[in-house]
């Protein structure tokens, strides 16, 4: 990966079964790390219906995975494109990606900061 001035945080909400593909794609790109969590999404994609002793009820939320990737400023486009590509199924509910500016960052182990901390 390139070495720029500052660090950006890319956040993606994706379909859970795409996680492995996205992770492998990011590895291939040389991204050093990813942080992942299980979330529930609500959006255009409908939830599902369950039945409980004759009563139907709707579960509005759909399980999604949230990924956070810190990257060097210079790599943002490449990384975002790759996520957009690998996480896409073309069906409703594929999710979102967004980028936030990071003011400063550190690696806990060494105390390094800025892009060196990646």
């Amino acid at each position, binding site marked *: 990966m390139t070495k720029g001035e500052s660090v950006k945080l890319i956040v993606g909400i994706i379909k859970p079964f795409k996680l492995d593909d996205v992770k492998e794609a990011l590895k291939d790109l040389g991204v050093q790390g990813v942080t992942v969590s299980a979330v529930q999404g609500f959006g255009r994609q409908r939830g599902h219906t*369950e*039945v*409980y*002793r*004759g*009563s*139907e*009820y*709707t579960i509005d939320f759909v399980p999604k995975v949230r990924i956070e990737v810190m990257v060097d400023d210079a790599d943002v486009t490449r990384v975002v494109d790759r996520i957009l590509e690998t996480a896409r199924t073309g069906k409703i509910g594929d999710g979102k990606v967004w980028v936030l500016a990071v003011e400063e960052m550190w690696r806990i182990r060494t105390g390094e900061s800025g892009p060196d901390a990646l």
Partner: protein
Amino acid sequence: MKINAGDTAWVLVAAALVLFMTPGLSLFYGGMVRAKNLLAMLMQNFVCMGIVTVLWVVVGYSLVFGRAGDGGLLGDFAFVGMKGLANTSIGTIPALAFVSFQLTFAVITPALITGAIADRMRFGAWVWFVVTWSLLVYSPVAHWVFAGGWLAARGALDFAGGTVVHVNAGAAALPLVLMLGRRKGWPHEPMPPHSLPLTLLGTGILWFGWFGFNAGSALAANGIAAQAFLNTFVAAAAGMLGWLAVERIKGGHATTLGAASGAVAGLVAITPCAGYVGGLAPVAIGAIAGGVCFLAIALKFKYGYDDALDVVAVHLVGGILGSILLGLFADASVNPRGADGVLYGGGWGLFGEQVLAVVVVFVFSFVVSGAIALVLDRVMRDGIRVSDDDEAIGLDLTMHSETAYAHERT
């Protein structure tokens, strides 16, 4: 009569099996509640194993089986503290084997009620309810039917507790549900089962234990026990298929919870009949119970009472069905101590007695249980229902200072 080791072995095993049903029931119900109320549900059941057992050897057994066969209303204090029972026999088994076996019924009957009152009754109130109910409701009803009391003397049949256990518990659940009121959010907010595998495990344990419940009620390891065993087996199966069929037709899906519930409905309905019917009767009884109990769930939505886990639809309705269907399907050729029902040329006599027994037990249990609940609600400082905050937080934390699941981070 001399003690028969085979009969004794069977009744002891049956007692163990029925005792195991109460933890099974707690899991069956526990899987259906929300995780924050799981322990409270387990506890309401386990505490029946504690309270009723001690009461039983002190006085309960005597209240039920004192003056057995008197055609009367209640036992006496002849056997208080198990006086004079050691090393005696009842039929071909030791008296204490009989005491243990009957005790398991006394334990599980109030435990059945917990499904109705789930998620909102104070633990202390439940404890006192069990103590009182055991003495004031279970003891007389069991005397009437199991100990040769007045209903038995009239000719009502109940092989293993259709009235004493299921109608009785179901009828007691109703006033409690009405007095406690609805769970916050019911019925508009869905309260799905938090762990169906627990419920299925509970179903397996219940089915397993029910063999002891019904076939053990023969009090001997003989042909009647075998008949009751097979009937139990078949009715559970037919109940499952009956429920699934109706569920599938009405809602499009055959659910796992439906399979479990249907099996239990079949088991409930066969309980009074187990040693008195034969051939394919258990298929009919089980299948009818499975279908009807499923449909009976609609009642709570129609009438707006929050019978949380459908004790009324499964135990009250199933118990009534079984008790009354026995008036049709009873077959004296299967068991000479039984009688012939309508379909076997016995006329409507038995049927009438069955209806009477159901009505009497229902009314008595409903009224006295309601009265007990009313008194407790007055007498106890905080009443019988938990506070709104406690209900929102969950009973596990607020009643027992515990959390069911703590799959930690590290």
